């Protein structure tokens, strides 16, 4: 990894970026007032728009939710392609998904259209640009509900205006260890940015991961929202990097020892719960970021994190597994993925 790419995509700290636009069709009532027949019509209208647009059609495949296997749906949730709520009730719902899964559009979730673009590392500008492009293509054939004063009209007034939620998932092990997260949570809340822990199977924030997102959607332009988010993530990144550097100079032995112990467990354990694996992977990622470990890159680590959830591990096995068997499978998967590759620098 070169120094310059580290500066722009901040992959040593930023895990992934997501941008979401909420849109509704003017002609159809919102979800709570939408009966099954009109919901079907609404989805057909979006499908028609897709067929009329070669650019959209080439990018996205249509997936009816009620035709999908439970395990696949659960793994979609673990990979952040759909919301847990969307997975719960599947009739009259559909998903538009790009082959590489970085674009997912939920049809008939809370809003008629929930368009999401994801990217590795820090890339809100790129994600927004692509989301806007997709929105414009849909807008060519669909009449999107809009009001000059309130902006894009959404089912819940919390999403009015731009309908934009931009979020960066950040890996902040040192800020967590030094108890600085709470100050960050207090400071960012004041300026309309929310910091929230990402909760997995364990009791603490999963793998020391946090979502930094804009709270408000009305009264700011899309660019202003992204600008503000970028400013905050820059500050957080600088602080986390400084703490890492300090640990590398002031307490190198204990810092390295923890990272290499975690890497050793990941490479050798026979049973790993999701919670334990998440914590160990946080240390592994920190080791790669501090140039202590090589042989694996940040994107691969993110992929592993998405794949070791209960459904992800069961899918690798081909069918649903009880927790004990999952822990064995998870440990086997980690050994297979890591044992021959990780190198100490």
């Amino acid at each position, binding site marked *: 990894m070169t120094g310059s790419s580290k500066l722009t995509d901040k992959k040593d700290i930023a895990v992934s970026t*997501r941008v979401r636009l909420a849109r509704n069709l003017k002609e159809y009532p*919102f979800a709570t007032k939408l009966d099954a027949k009109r919901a079907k019509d609404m989805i057909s209208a979006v499908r028609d728009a897709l067929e009329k647009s070669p650019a959209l059609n080439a990018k996205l495949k249509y997936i009816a939710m009620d035709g999908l296997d439970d395990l696949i749906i659960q793994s979609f949730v673990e990979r952040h392609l759909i919301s*847990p709520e969307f997975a719960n009730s599947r009739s009259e719902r559909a998903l538009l998904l790009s082959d590489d899964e970085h674009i997912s559009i939920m049809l008939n979730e809370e809003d008629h259209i929930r368009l999401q673009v994801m990217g590795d590392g820090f890339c809100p500008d790129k994600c927004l640009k692509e989301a806007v492009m997709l929105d414009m293509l849909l807008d060519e054939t669909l009449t999107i509900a*809009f009001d*000059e004063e*309130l902006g894009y009209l959404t089912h819940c*007034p919390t999403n009015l205006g731009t309908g934009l939620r931009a979020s960066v998932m950040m890996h902040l092990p040192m800020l967590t260890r030094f108890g600085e997260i*709470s100050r960050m949570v207090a400071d960012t809340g004041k300026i309309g940015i929310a910091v929230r822990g990402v909760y997995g199977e364990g009791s603490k924030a999963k793998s020391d991961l946090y979502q930094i997102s804009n709270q*408000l959607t009305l009264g700011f*332009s899309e660019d202003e929202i992204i600008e503000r988010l970028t400013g905050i993530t820059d500050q957080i990144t600088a602080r986390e990097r400084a703490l890492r550097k300090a640990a590398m100079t002031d307490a190198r032995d204990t810092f390295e020892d923890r990272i290499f112990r975690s890497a050793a467990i990941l490479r050798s354990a026979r049973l790993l719960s999701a919670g334990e694996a998440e914590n160990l992977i946080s240390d592994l990622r920190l080791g790669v970021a501090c140039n202590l470990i090589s042989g694996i890159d940040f994107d691969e680590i993110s992929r592993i994190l998405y794949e070791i959830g209960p459904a992800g591990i069961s899918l690798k096995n081909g069918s649903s597994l009880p927790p004990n068997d999952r822990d064995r499978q998870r440990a086997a998967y980690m050994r297979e993925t890591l044992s021959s590759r990780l190198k100490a620098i």
Partner: protein
Amino acid sequence: MLCENCKKRQATTYLKTVSNNEIKEMRLCDECAKEFGGFDFFSGDFGLNGILSSLMGQPQTYGKARPTGGVCPVCGSTLEDISEYGRVGCANCYDTFHESLMPYIRKIHGSAVHTGRVPGRIAKSPARRIKELETKLAQAVAAQEYEQAAVLRDELKALKEGGEK
């Protein structure tokens, strides 16, 4: 800063709740945040999900002065329905119940004037184009860019005359 719920552990998560008809910020530790539902990017509403019902359901705003705002002609929603679901019934509800909803919308966003992107059909409308040109013209004049201002003035004139035909 300590968690505002248990007051024992460090806060790691920010969310909002409604109490006494006001939006309240909360900073919670991992464990309390998990209890409150953790974070889901998709519903990413920071605890504001259903905020409308919490706000509208408050006795001090309802009670005797409870608005009887009628029925949305498009989806059949009443204000009671909106309060119950915490969500409006259709795009037209924002029109029908404009007066009742605006105070809540201002309370949630702190502002109620959209300044972001607009759909193509609206961006292309002559009225919007005229508004845009007028703003640009004022800016050009203020910056003493008179050549630029002349071009804008001509374009505006043509657009306004075109509209009269």
